[in-house]
């Protein structure tokens, strides 16, 4: 890889495909994930969950369970103080503490099948299992509602009698299941559609899907008599876990120490707390460490997923293809408590395009399902799938190449985004061009094969970040970051540190520190960790360089302008160069004590300037007309990374996001029975793509530098899951001539549609 220069320092490691520092532990089984931690004397905790989707909890009798030998603690709603209504950021979405305390442990009502109603800690898993069966819960079963649209109807079963729709003036006098109505407006919609030669309006439905991380939630907690607490858990944000746990258990934040284990996938689903407060409460009662691990069934029934939704999109275009007006109505399932990702869904819907007149309205709707959690670009894949489908139909009706149509309307630097502000430098056009240049775009297709293209957008964020760099006695560097590393963060941050300080990559040891070792870090989410972390490292390295230059000046009796730091050493300039030899970081390390003490820097920032990220996906698939089964044949992802700190792990984000999107589009869904119970709470019937379901995923790394970042970095983690749904739906239309408006496009649905058109013959 060619050497490039940013901010005057030569880069040798950034942009190369280094072996990740945490890699060896992960290929040898040594890496410790959530369930791999144990403490002497630990108890095993287990949760008793509601079998009913909606029921008033009349009484809970735990006496029989407490009497069982080996049971050391039982907790219920009575063990958690109620919380006032107050919104806080729960990972990538807002959540209300009043709801958080009710979600971790049901209070007045159980609001979904799998809702925690009690928990036990016992000397073995077997005893805990038996104890749960001995807890007597009296339920008054209530009528339930699963579908969001049904939940919006008057007379639908009401989940919360104190929930009044926000965003409607005047404030409704009756409670409902609609928590929030949000709108964005731009220009004059009526006037806009007047200018349209072609107007297309369609309604789309998507099913709720789970993040599907392979590692179930796990937590190990211990609380001592003086109220100091320690937690080891699998999370995307241990500082957030600390904040939530301290709040729910009434502990001082400073007394709670949380260590993030290696995390076995999160995708947004590990940004909230489930087991951690329960393990702490049990440990507090039992005075012993308590370990809790969810089963896969619990993961499906009581964590995640993201919203299912109904989306109506209307777009108007002139006959030469200019988009003149667009409206959308989004109804997102929030699950049992308000807080679906409908807000970002609303803001992202038309973000890739330059449209003068836009109106989008969204509804946040509760129903008897698990509370949704963030999932990779929360809310965006749903609304953008609907829009990309309509865009594809416009291209077809106007007989314009779908890439050219997107290019003609693409947002570019200076375009006023549908959600308000103007875009800075962005790479949508570049990704469209990149896709058009691929051999894939022009490859021939056979009968029953189809090709689809779609673009996608995600904001990306920065946020509070604290990173420390310490130069050790031998000149090696310890890097401590506070955002859990899910997909190669340590490799990226170590590369930046190596370049900033001019030390070899393998002399930098990056670790993820616990909450006691750094200032507050917001969680790994919003595609922020490499973006913000690398900014903080630049800041920390700056401090070290300044310190070393100052020490050199003292040692050489020189003035600041007579020295400079470059390529890993402080160098004397001009005349001074005759008397003094450059001093490397290792040289300083050896005399650190003599020259003022330990050498290090701490980057403490609230990272701003996150660069929006755009991607365009291209997919070929083949449909078996006799069974309705679609096979993905070929896939290409082009996305703007700004600057790829570690190209292999950026590609990995693109490929992983694309395949998650394939699952969302074709087979994944939460299936409920009339009884309101989840019927496919396992990997067998919740059908995530397996290795034989997908082809190689080709990637094109587009790099339109983000001017607000020292290396030009943009977040890359979330955008890759946005385009697949639309691209695959468009490919299905291209293969069959049928526009599918409901996800997943599973074989029974596809075959039914083919039959209705009399196409179900090979």
């Amino acid at each position, binding site marked *: 890889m060619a050497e490039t220069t940013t901010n005057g320092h030569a880069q040798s490691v950034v942009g190369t495909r280094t072996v990740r520092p945490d890699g060896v532990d992960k290929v040898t089984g040594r890496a410790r994930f959530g369930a791999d931690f144990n403490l002497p004397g630990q108890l095993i905790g287990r949760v008793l969950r509601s079998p009913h989707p909606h029921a008033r909890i009349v009484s809970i009798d735990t006496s029989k369970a407490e009497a069982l030998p080996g049971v050391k603690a039982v907790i219920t709603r009575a063990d958690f103080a109620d919380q006032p209504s107050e919104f806080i950021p729960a990972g990538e979405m807002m959540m209300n503490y009043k709801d958080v305390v009710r979600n971790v442990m049901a209070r007045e009502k159980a609001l979904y099948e799998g809702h925690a109603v009690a928990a036990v800690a016992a000397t073995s898993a077997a005893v805990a299992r038996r104890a749960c069966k001995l807890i007597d819960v009296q339920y008054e079963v209530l009528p339930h509602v699963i579908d969001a649209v049904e939940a919006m109807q008057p007379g639908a079963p009401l989940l919360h009698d104190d929930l009044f729709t*926000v965003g409607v003036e005047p404030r409704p006098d009756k409670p409902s299941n609609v928590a929030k109505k949000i709108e964005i407006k731009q220009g004059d919609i009526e006037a806009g559609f007047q200018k349209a030669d072609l107007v297309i309006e369609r309604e789309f439905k998507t099913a709720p899907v789970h993040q599907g991380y392979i590692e179930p939630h796990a937590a190990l907690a211990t609380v001592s008599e003086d109220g100091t607490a320690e937690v080891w858990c699998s999370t995307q944000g241990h500082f957030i876990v600390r904040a939530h746990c301290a709040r729910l258990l009434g502990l001082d934040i400073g007394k709670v120490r949380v260590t993030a284990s290696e995390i076995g996938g999160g995708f947004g689903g590990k940004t909230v707390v489930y087991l951690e407060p329960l393990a702490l409460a049990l440990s507090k009662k039992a005075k012993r460490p308590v370990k809790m691990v969810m089963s896969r069934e619990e993961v499906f029934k009581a964590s995640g997923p993201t919203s299912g939704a109904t989306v109506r999109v209307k777009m108007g275009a002139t006959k030469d293809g200019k988009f003149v007006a667009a409206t959308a109505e989004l109804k997102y399932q929030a699950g049992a408590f308000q807080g679906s990702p409908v807000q*970002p869904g609303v803001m992202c819907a038309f973000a890739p395009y330059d449209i003068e007149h836009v109106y989008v309205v969204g509804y946040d709707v509760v129903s008897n399902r698990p509370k949704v959690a*963030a999932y990779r670009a929360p809310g965006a894949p749903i609304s953008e799938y609907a829009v990309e489908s309509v865009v594809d139909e416009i291209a077809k009706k106007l007989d314009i190449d779908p890439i050219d149509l997107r290019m003609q309307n693409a947002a570019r630097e200076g375009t006023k985004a549908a*959600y308000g*502000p103007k*875009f800075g430098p962005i790479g949508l056009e570049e990704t469209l061009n990149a896709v058009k240049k691929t051999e894939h775009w022009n490859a021939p297709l056979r009968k029953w094969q189809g090709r689809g293209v779609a673009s996608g957008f995600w904001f990306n964020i*920065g946020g509070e970040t604290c990173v420390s760099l310490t130069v050790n006695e031998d000149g090696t560097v310890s890097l401590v970051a506070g955002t859990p590393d899910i997909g190669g963060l340590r490799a990226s941050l170590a590369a930046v540190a190596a370049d900033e300080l001019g030390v070899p990559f393998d002399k930098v040891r990056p670790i993820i520190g616990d909450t006691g070792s750094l200032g507050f870090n917001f969680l790994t*989410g*919003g595609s922020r960790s490499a973006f913000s972390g690398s900014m903080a490292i630049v800041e920390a390295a700056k401090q070290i360089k300044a310190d070393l230059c100052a020490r050199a000046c003292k040692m050489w009796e020189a003035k600041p302008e007579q020295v400079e730091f470059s390529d890993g050493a402080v160098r004397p300039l001009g005349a001074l160069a005759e008397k003094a030899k450059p001093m490397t970081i290792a040289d300083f390390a050896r005399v650190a004590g003599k020259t003022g003490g330990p050498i290090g820097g701490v980057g403490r920032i609230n990272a701003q300037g996150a660069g929006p990220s755009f991607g365009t996906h291209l997919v070929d698939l083949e449909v078996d007309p006799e069974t309705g089964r679609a096979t993905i044949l070929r896939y290409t992802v082009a996305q703007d990374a700004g600057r790829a700190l570690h190209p292999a792990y950026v590609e990995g984000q693109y490929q992983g996001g694309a395949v998650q999107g394939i699952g969302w589009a074709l087979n994944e869904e939460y299936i409920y029975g009339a009884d309101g119970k989840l019927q496919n709470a396992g990997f067998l019937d919740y059908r995530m793509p397996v290795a034989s379901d997908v082809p190689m995923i080709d990637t094109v790394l587009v790099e339109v530098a983000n001017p607000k970042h020292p290396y030009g970095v943009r977040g890359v983690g979330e955008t890759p899951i946005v385009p697949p749904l639309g691209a695959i739906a468009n490919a299905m239309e291209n293969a069959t001539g049928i526009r599918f408006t409901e996800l997943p496009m599973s074989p029974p649905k596809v075959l039914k549609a083919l039959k209705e058109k009399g196409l179900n013959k090979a």
Partner: protein
Amino acid sequence: MARVVLVGNLAQLTGGVTEFELSVTSVKQLFEQLTELYPAIGRHLDDGIAVAIDGQIYQDSLLEPIRPDSEVFLLPQIAGGSTSR
């Protein structure tokens, strides 16, 4: 005078007014002036609001400077960028 635009539901707290001309030099001043005009909006500005100054989005950053010719948008925070704990 900086041009200030409210995006989304905030306008409901200003009786529907979505655009202002305000002479402010920082986000902090902007919030103070808006709160004087519309006390109801204050609580919402404390948290959950992002500010876009000339196209660049800032997630709760009170001290960002605003130039006289700046175009400022107040929008909901994206992806929980808020850092209140």
